[in-house]
């Protein structure tokens, strides 16, 4: 398997946000992480990405323990985190943002190839390549965020609510592009989403998380939207 999270705890100060969370993503899979807001989904992603290390338990990537690895090392190893807030560099152009996505040494040699893929996926970005990111629309900045993550030559992508706040048409476009990323390049994906229907169609397995714990794990085909919604409450 690509990523294996075993029984991790995470705290913000004295507040425990993750309780013995375990999860796995296999090679080439798309796994969706569902659940109400503020219950630890983003924290879980950050724990894997090395941005907020767990206090106990382990995170493994292709067998190697990355629980305490630095963010630099983790990106270098091929895990990319695409945050909900995007965190683009506002006074840099789309092109500069994308290029910075390839900051890690392994990705630097493959900038041309990855850039081609990103522009093929998001033609609009190529049009706007010299535009400052502070002037982009919501959908466009989402695309740059995803593109920037791809530029790191990642083999595992963690995407945090990519479609939030977008119009239905844009939502569909975002999910289509994530599907293309997974199928076109075999990149394993862990996606946090509130759009249950889209998530069920995209993912092969889903986890549901509530109050910092994993409530259930199912194959996407084995569960109905209604059942998930019920579990939210």
């Amino acid at each position, binding site marked *: 398997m690509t990523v294996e999270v075993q029984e991790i705890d995470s705290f913000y100060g004295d507040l425990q946000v993750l309780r013995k969370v375990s999860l796995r993503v296999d090679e080439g899979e798309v796994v969706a992480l569902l659940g109400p807001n503020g219950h630890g989904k983003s924290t879980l992603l950050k724990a894997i990405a090395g941005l907020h290390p767990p206090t106990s338990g382990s995170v493994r990537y292709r067998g190697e323990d990355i629980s305490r690895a630095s963010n630099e090392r983790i*990106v270098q190893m091929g895990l990319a985190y695409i945050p909900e807030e995007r965190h683009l*560099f506002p*006074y*840099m152009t789309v092109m500069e943002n994308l290029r*910075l996505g390839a*900051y890690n040494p392994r990705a630097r040699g493959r900038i041309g190839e990855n850039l081609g893929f990103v522009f093929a996926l998001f033609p609009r970005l190529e049009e706007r390549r010299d535009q400052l990111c502070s002037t982009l629309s919501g959908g466009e900045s989402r695309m740059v965020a995803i593109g920037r993550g791809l530029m790191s030559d990642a083999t595992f992508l963690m995407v945090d609510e990519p479609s939030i706040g977008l119009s239905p048409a844009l939502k569909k476009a975002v999910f289509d592009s994530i599907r293309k990323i997974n199928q076109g390049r075999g990149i394993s994906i862990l996606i946090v989403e509130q759009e249950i229907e889209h998530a069920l169609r995209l993912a092969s397995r889903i986890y549901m998380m509530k109050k910092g714990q994993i409530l259930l794990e199912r194959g996407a085909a084995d569960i109905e939207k209604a059942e998930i919604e019920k579990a939210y409450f």
Partner: protein
Amino acid sequence: MPPSASSSRRAGILPGRLTIRDLINALVSGFISGALYASMALGLTIIYGVIHVFNFGHGIVAVLGAYGAWLFLTSLGLGMIPSILISCVAMFFFGLLIYKATIHPLLQKPNWEFSTIIFLLGFGIFLENMLLQAFGPRVKSIPPFFEGAIEIAFVRINWHEVSLVLIVIAFVVALHFFLKKTWIGQAMRAVAQEMDGARVVGININRTFSLAFAVAIAATGFSGILLGTKYYMTPHIGWDWMVKGFVIVVFGGLGSATGAVYGAFILGIAEAMATLYLGALWVWPVWFFIFVIILLLRPQGIAGGRTL
């Protein structure tokens, strides 16, 4: 009508005795000091932009670089270029050392905005007085790079001053290239603009901070050398340079290199104009006045929030 009266009347904007020639000389002089100020303000901007620490020891760093070069020149008898190079390299490592030993630990604790400033202030005073001990209070200066002057139309400029402006231009261009085209420079810009985003793309924040600090210290030391060729130095002159630097970076917009450069030229010329119209005694009040006005009316400065 006497000829002199008519020529100044034609000038229109000048009081009695001053002529167009004086005005142009002042503009040129202001431009040259502006260039020197620009080189000095950049170091301050980099540290604030990337690390968000305001270097209250900025002045003494410039003086240190200058004294270092002076030392290599006079005591070790090295040539001008080796002296400058060694001084800058030494300042770079000095910056790295200071960052790792003191700034980095302070940043991990709460109240770092405050504690770093107090530390740098105290450290600056310490260094200034140690320099005073080591070198004595008598003024020093670094010899100019070139001798002689040229006279174009009304203006007499030293070749040295021309070289200073060219050096500063080269320096600014080099810095621009560094920030925009090298990976580490881009990393510094990324950290300055959006630190979370920098983490996401795998930038090592700590290493970026330390390099930014070291580069800024070296740059400030270099600017001190340039200033030392034009002005007489004592360890205390760092304060004057520092306060002017503060005004410039706030005027230009904290964290903006472009703002700092423009601000430096504008204020350099403003200073020259003030000296021309009001006399040398009014120079400091003018700097203060500009500072207060900017802080009250537009604290974000020319650049208005745009950063490195």
